[in-house]
């Protein structure tokens, strides 16, 4: 068996598990990366019951540079060559910028921007013959989102990074896809939150099994941006007709209403 692996960063969340399962079904070896060791073990054990491919795990906090260095040392020591990188790890906070704690804001920026960049940059050094990179951005990356200021800016960062790197790395059999999903229904509490956003929230929901399946197809087709959900694509299309200075006001007003509903359920979500 070859030493070509797919690395899934954030492998123990709902999306991470789904990417891992659909990829191992297609015959890939998988390197599962996440923070929680016991979740990693539970998931690895269940994969090994059914599949014959290699499954390795590594516990890593991507905001810690030394841990990321150790992760890639582990990859080199085991002679692993990456054929795909699926980067899901990220944090979402829904609160006013000035009301969020300093640590939480930095944690978000560190994970979504610095940690992501760190992983992608180092992955280029251990790629196999080709490297397909899938990074979870968000529909929020297309909008200036009051109450999600740093989050939406961090997701915009990923969208532009994907576009630019696809140009820079064109001749080097490396490609990046940014998946810009709206709320992913991976847990009941997330579904509750989407419900509270009314009809818009509910229409934007797409099953994660479908999102994963189609985004893996898009990755093979060398797409740069993928927005799951017809409703979300239509929404995005319309929003491009509206000047951003007006968009931020519309979103601000909508979000204030939704915030009043979910006030009790405000929390930091580690994805």
């Amino acid at each position, binding site marked *: 068996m070859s030493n070509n692996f797919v690395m899934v960063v954030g492998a*123990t969340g*709902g999306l991470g*598990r*789904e990417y*891992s*399962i*659909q990829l191992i079904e297609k015959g890939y070896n998988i390197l599962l990366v996440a923070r929680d060791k016991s*979740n990693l073990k*539970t*998931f690895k*054990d*269940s*994969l090994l*019951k*059914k599949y014959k491919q290699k499954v390795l795990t590594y516990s890593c906090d991507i905001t810690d540079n030394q841990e990321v260095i150790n992760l890639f040392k582990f990859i080199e020591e085991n002679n692993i060559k990456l054929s795909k990188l699926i980067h899901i790890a990220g944090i979402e906070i829904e609160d006013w910028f000035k009301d969020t704690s300093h640590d939480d804001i930095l944690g978000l920026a560190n994970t979504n921007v610095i940690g992501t960049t760190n992983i992608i940059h180092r992955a280029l050094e251990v790629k196999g013959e080709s490297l397909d990179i899938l990074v979870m951005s968000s529909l929020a990356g297309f909008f200036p989102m009051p109450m999600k200021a740093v989050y939406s800016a961090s997701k915009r960062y990923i969208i532009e990074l994907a576009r630019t790197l696809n140009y820079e790395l064109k001749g080097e059999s490396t490609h990046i896809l940014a998946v810009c999903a709206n709320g992913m*229904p*991976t*847990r*009941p509490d997330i*579904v509750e939150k989407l*419900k509270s956003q009314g009809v818009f929230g*509910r229409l934007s*929901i797409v*099953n*994660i*099994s*479908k999102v994963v*399946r189609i985004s893996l197809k898009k990755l093979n087709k060398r797409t740069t941006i993928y927005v799951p959900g017809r409703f979300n694509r239509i929404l995005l299309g319309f929003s491009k007709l509206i000047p951003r200075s007006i968009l931020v006001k519309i979103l601000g007003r909508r979000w204030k209403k939704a915030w009043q509903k979910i006030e009790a359920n405000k929390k930091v979500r580690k994805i």
Partner: protein
Amino acid sequence: MKNIVITGATSGIGLAIVKALVEKEENVIAIGMNQVDCDTAYNSLQRPKSLRYIPIDLSSNQQIDNQSKLILEHFEEKIDVLIHCAATVRQYFMTNKEGYELQFQVNYLAIFHLTRNLLEAIKNSKGMVIATSSRVHRRTKLYFDDLMNRKRYFILNVYRKTKLCIAIFIHQFNRLFMDKDLIGYAVDPGLVNTTIGAQNTTGFFNKFWQFRSSFGQTPKVVATYYLKLIYEKRITTAPYYYKYGKQLKPSAYSRRADIGKLLWKASEEYVK
């Protein structure tokens, strides 16, 4: 006095059956999803000594393994009846920590897993397994290359397939264990007035279930069908599917021996 284990015992049909069994003063271990639900149900029954609630989150195979040991200890490896009432309806595709889809895991795989863990104890008492199926199992089949419906996830479709799995399971169970004096029954409770379709759904489905279930029977009436199977003379001829207390043939697909074998093998792989 019988040793009876029952899942889904904190609401709906399960709770109604526990109530009836407590009145008959049987030894009951009732299983609920979490400690809070278990405590609420236990208190509502006035905390009888013959009843014990054990919380097991059936979406976690690890918890099923851990807590099975408690059950076996408590009943000293003798179980007369194992009743499966726990089920869930999920609008969106979600997985547990092992990557198993939740409706498949809770509605079917947990049944397989728990029955397997308690099998020796059931054999010791020449006991009975009762699982809750549904008429919606008809006119559907399983895709063994996609048992968890990754490609075809639609809320009712998935629920129907899990109920089909139960009918298949019961028939295969009887094929394997009837000669050891065990018996399995699938109960079709008909339309019952419970909250199953309203707990994890939104919008249209949620409202639709609340409306439709109001026409259903009360859990108290439905519980009598289960008790009939436990207390009346054991019927060991097919079909092993009961509706409103009478034998009824389930779908031909669910009675196929080859399908039974395939599903059993696939299930063993998931929980080994």
